[in-house]
């Protein structure tokens, strides 16, 4: 079976599975204060009306440049942040507004893997304790049993059992990320949000972690929301990819469709900007002018119209909705 | 910036009201009242005392007393010093120029010493010179100010005869003449040195560490890559950045200097706010004491405001619109 067939088969099988996470019109705003009395004078619309679904066992990639709101989306989905509007349904249950112990119980099912594995590990704690902590938050466990369980988990993520007794600073970046993954896996979650899990790692280590994440997904039937700025990595990891720009999803498609036929001008520019480690390909680059506008003061209409090479008059007036223009291929652009 | 300053000044008002309530309550809680100063001590006639208490408003309910005090205060009437029998405002204002002069001189001395030593140490860390400077600094920090003051007087004033041993001016020179101002400068130098040396250590070490830290920053590498001479890098690129955190110190120093001046002023018989403060505590001169406490609180707040404004000037990153 070729890789291509494998992927096709995977896509087909996923189509029939249940939706695990359904995000509808999600908005997350930060207040901005100012003026004489430090009143809230505006909002940074970090996430502005974003909708997507993830099926069980699927990986949805979120890609975009810094400040596009992809991390905020991830955090809001995990309810690490309070959404300003919209709905988050997890296995059909609305978790948008739950709090306290209810939220605490729900969190068992979704975990996060962070970008900087070192900063997210307590330097004073033994690795074993770091991994045991989330488990002990939910249940009382026999100490010996738990230790055994954690050791096998460590082995599973490619660390020696002896790692249990060591501290985070004794590990390399890649190994620390494995610890972070082990901690996320400890509670046997259904959804893992991985926020730039490999961007701090070297290429050779990055591939190890990416491979590990893929293996684990199949082994534990995990669902991933995979967030990264590197489109190649996202494409490698994801079944479907959402492209974000200035708080909005501008395009969602399967990874092949997205690469083969990017529809949104931003996606086209993004893909063309990626330098390929292949001198045989000489791409015609679309180099965008200028910078991403400030999310505090976003342009009216289509957020991308200020830099869009194909912008028309209407683009500055109306924000185009995300709509399905081909089967499974959604885009928010007036061109379609 | 103006808007910011006004907002900060307005923001100080509730703070000052709170402080004034605390100051007033503390003064009322202190043992005895200041009747001893207001009432003829030879007349222990209870009727007379009662009459005076009534007259001085000590029998009013506390909120009324507070209100009377604070309204007077806002109008510049700080009450009458029970010890000096004069308006507390006059008594304080008489001393303010001396303390201000001493404070500014000691700040200048601190800055000169700290910059010289800090820049040297920061540029040549872990050398003999750096260690020597650190040693001197910690000794200066460790010596109690009264010991330092007495030592300075015996060494510089009595042995070397360089400075007068006390006072703020030679009374024999004509007020207002050039000689008068030289004499004032001459008198303030020694106490200012003692006072300034106390805070020099923290400034020096802070500056040193900040320079070392900054010298490892990327922009230093950039400057070197541009072919900028190392001296200029230290004296312009690094120093300019290292001054920024020092500005925060200035805010605290403003009021701390006056507090720190208590002992120095007393030993040098340099009549200023510090001496007055000590005096009014021991003599239960509550009107003066309360006015001084309010003044110091205000100075602390103002010092912080000034530091914040300066911060905006020295650090373009937080420049305020």
């Amino acid at each position, binding site marked *: 079976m070729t890789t291509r067939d494998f992927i096709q088969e995977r896509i087909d099988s996923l189509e029939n599975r249940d939706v695990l996470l359904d995000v509808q019109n999600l908005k997350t705003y930060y207040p901005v204060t100012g003026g004489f009395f430090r009143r809230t004078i505006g909002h940074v619309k970090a996430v502005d009306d974003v909708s997507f679904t993830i099926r069980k066992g699927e990986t949805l990639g979120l890609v975009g440049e810094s400040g596009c709101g992809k991390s905020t989306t991830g955090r809001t989905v995990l309810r690490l942040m309070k959404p300003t509007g919209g709905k988050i349904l997890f296995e059909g249950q609305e978790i948008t507004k739950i709090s306290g112990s209810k939220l605490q119980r729900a969190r068992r099912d979704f975990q996060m893997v962070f970008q900087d594995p070192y900063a997210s590990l307590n330097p004073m704690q033994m690795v074993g304790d770091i991994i045991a902590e989330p488990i002990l938050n939910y249940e009382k466990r026999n100490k010996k049993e738990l230790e055994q369980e954690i050791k096998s988990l460590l082995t599973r993520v490619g660390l020696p059992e002896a790692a249990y007794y060591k501290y985070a600073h004794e590990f390399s970046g890649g190994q620390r990320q494995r610890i972070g993954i082990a901690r996320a896996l400890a509670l046997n979650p259904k959804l893992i949000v991985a926020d730039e899990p490999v961007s701090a790692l070297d290429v050779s280590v990055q591939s190890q972690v990416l491979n590990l994440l893929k293996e684990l997904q199949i082994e534990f039937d995990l669902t991933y929301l995979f967030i990264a700025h590197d489109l190649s990595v996202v494409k490698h990891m994801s079944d479907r990819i959402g492209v974000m720009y200035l708080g909005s999803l501008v395009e969602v498609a399967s990874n092949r469709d997205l690469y083969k036929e990017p529809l949104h001008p931003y996606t086209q520019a993004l893909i063309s900007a990626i330098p390929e480690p292949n001198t045989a390909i000489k791409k015609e680059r679309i180099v965008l002018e200028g910078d991403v506008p400030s999310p505090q003061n976003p342009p009216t209409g289509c957020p991308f119209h200020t830099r869009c090479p194909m912008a028309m008059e209407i683009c500055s007036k109306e924000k185009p909705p995300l709509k399905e223009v081909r089967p499974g291929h959604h885009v928010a652009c007036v061109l379609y | 910036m103006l808007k910011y300053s006004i907002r900060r000044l307005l923001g100080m008002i509730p703070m000052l009201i709170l402080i004034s309530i605390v100051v007033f309550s503390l003064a009322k809680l202190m043992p005895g009242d200041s009747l001893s100063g207001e009432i003829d001590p030879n007349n222990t006639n209870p009727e007379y005392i009662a009459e005076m208490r009534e007259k001085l408003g000590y029998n009013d309910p506390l909120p009324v007393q507070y209100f009377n005090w604070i309204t007077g205060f806002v109008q510049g009437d700080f009450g009458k010093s029970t010890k000096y029998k004069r308006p507390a405002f006059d008594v304080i204002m008489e001393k303010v120029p001396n303390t201000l002069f001493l404070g500014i001189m000691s700040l200048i001395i601190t800055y000169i010493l700290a910059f010289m030593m800090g820049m040297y140490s920061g540029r040549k860390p872990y050398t003999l010179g750096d260690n020597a400077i650190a040693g001197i600094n910690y000794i200066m920090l460790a010596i109690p100010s009264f010991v330092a003051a007495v030592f300075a007087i015996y060494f510089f004033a009595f042995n070397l005869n360089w400075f007068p041993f006390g006072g703020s001016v*030679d009374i024999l020179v004509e007020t207002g003449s050039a000689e008068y101002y030289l004499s004032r400068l001459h008198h303030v130098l020694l106490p200012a040195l003692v006072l300034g040396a106390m805070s020099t250590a923290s400034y020096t070490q802070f500056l040193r560490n900040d320079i070392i830290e900054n010298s490892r920053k990327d922009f230093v590498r950039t400057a070197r890559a541009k072919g900028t001479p190392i001296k200029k890098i230290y004296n312009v690129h690094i120093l300019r950045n290292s001054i920024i955190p020092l500005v925060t110190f200035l805010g605290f120093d403003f009021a701390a200097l006056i507090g720190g001046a208590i002992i120095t002023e007393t030993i040098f018989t340099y009549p200023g706010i510090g001496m007055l403060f000590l005096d009014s505590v021991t003599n239960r001169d509550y009107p003066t004491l309360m006015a001084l406490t309010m003044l110091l609180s205000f100075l602390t707040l103002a010092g912080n405001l000034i530091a914040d404004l300066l911060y905006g000037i020295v650090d373009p990153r937080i420049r305020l619109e």
Partner: protein
Amino acid sequence: MKKNKSLLWLFALILVLSAFLAACGGDDGETTTPDPAEPADTEETDEDTEGAAEGEAQAGGTLVYGLDAPPEGLFSSAFYGIATDAEVIGIFDEPLIDYNENLEPVPNIASWETEDNKAFTFKFEEGVKWHNGEELTVNDWVFALETIASPDYDGPRYTNVSTIEGAEAFRAGEADSISGIEVVSDYEINITFDEARVNNLTNLWAYALPEAAMGDIPVAEMSASEFVITNPIGIGPFKVDKIVQGESVEFSKFEDYWNGDVNLDKIVLRVVDNSSVVGALQNGDIDMISLQPVSGPEVEPLENVEVITYPGLSYYYVGFKLGKFDNESQTIVEENPKYQNKQLRQAMMYALNRQEWVDAFFFGYANVVNAPVPSSHWNSADDSELNTYEYDPEQAKTLLDEAGYVDQDGDGFREDPNGDEFVVKFSHYATGNPTFESRAQAITQYFEEVGLKSELEMVEVNLYYDMIEKDDPAIETFFGGWGTGADPDPSGLWKADQLWNYPRYNNPEADKLLDDALNIDIVGTDQDKRTELYIEWQKIVNEDLPMLYIAELEEIVALNNRVGGVEYDVSGSNSPAEWFVTE
């Protein structure tokens, strides 16, 4: 490095500048020496050559007078509150009536006559000039008395005029003048008191105020006026040229001084912190200064300085709280049982080695006393008439045994006669002075040596006197000190109806003796008769011991050898007019 260098230059400049200023200071020092071009009035000399300098009095020169605490700046006899201000006033002003070495009043500007100790006639010297050129007349005295008697007066001297007939009415606003004062002429005045007392004269306020200068100032504003704060006017040998608040005063010779020649050209008064006194004396930066006892041993070895002592008017004691005072009724209303046993108090007196203690903490500048009247007062009892309570721990133990204070539980300390634990709770005031705690500890040590368990508590000084005055139960035995004035009458500190009778000593027999000594019907004008009564009283309080008398202090003065003409007795120094400096 450019910046570094400029900083270095700045620092160097400051050093150079200060060296230059130091040189200037030296020049200033030289200007204080007499100008040789000026004719020196050396022919007229004073016979009095006591003081440090040997040889004849010289005219001219500047004397630097040190003060070890800053004056408050109320430079008027009618308004001042502390001794340092009085020292300053003493240089530019004079009383109308002076006191001799026995603290008996002697005429200065005013002389007096009285028949009955009730009505007095005072006659003033003529030609006495104020520093502003006006002549002193009796009206200036009347002005002073009426100022003090005014209801708006905020100074502490009213008791010194309250006994004048009509003063109460004047103060109450019922009269426009004080009826007991009758001006006869510019130089003669009659003053009548409300009743005949033996001490009417010593109690009377004897300083004038310059009416011409101050007459227009409302009394309430007087204490803050320029004639008190910045530009005081007196009749003394020196006039005030300049005042730098809180640190120095410049005086110059008053050419129109009424009483003979003034030797010095200038007196500069400087405040010197205690820590600098020795150095300043050694360096000749100050010529004379009153010393704290602790400085004495340091100053004595200096070759250029002489240390002079003279009897003082203050004494220290350990008081017992014997009762509780009611401020409303002005009576002692309760008795504290703990120290009522006289034998206990006497035993504690024997337990104290007062001489050793005085030598240790006052460096010999104090004398042990056995009664509360300073030995300089004419009514002081001689030690031969009193029990001197020589240090005798054995006697103390015997007395305690007799009184039933014995060690019953074998812990080394005595219990009270009921067998309950007995602890001497001793309180001492705390200031910044570190020796206070050790001297207080020494006293508890003496008590413990005779088997009395003792506890020391150091109390902040302001709080301390407040607690004592209010008979706070936390104070049981306490360390204290009193300074007395020219009037030898101890009533104010000892009678049962006085707030300042801190031990709450209540002995009607003793109180009667004090009353009798002031009763003109009993003693008349006979001082011997009064002395007899006072000695009788001292015998009683020496026996009763409501307080353990410890020591009276000596006053210590350091004088530079170049200073002459300075004399001291218990009333203080002689007139500054007689002071001189030699080169």
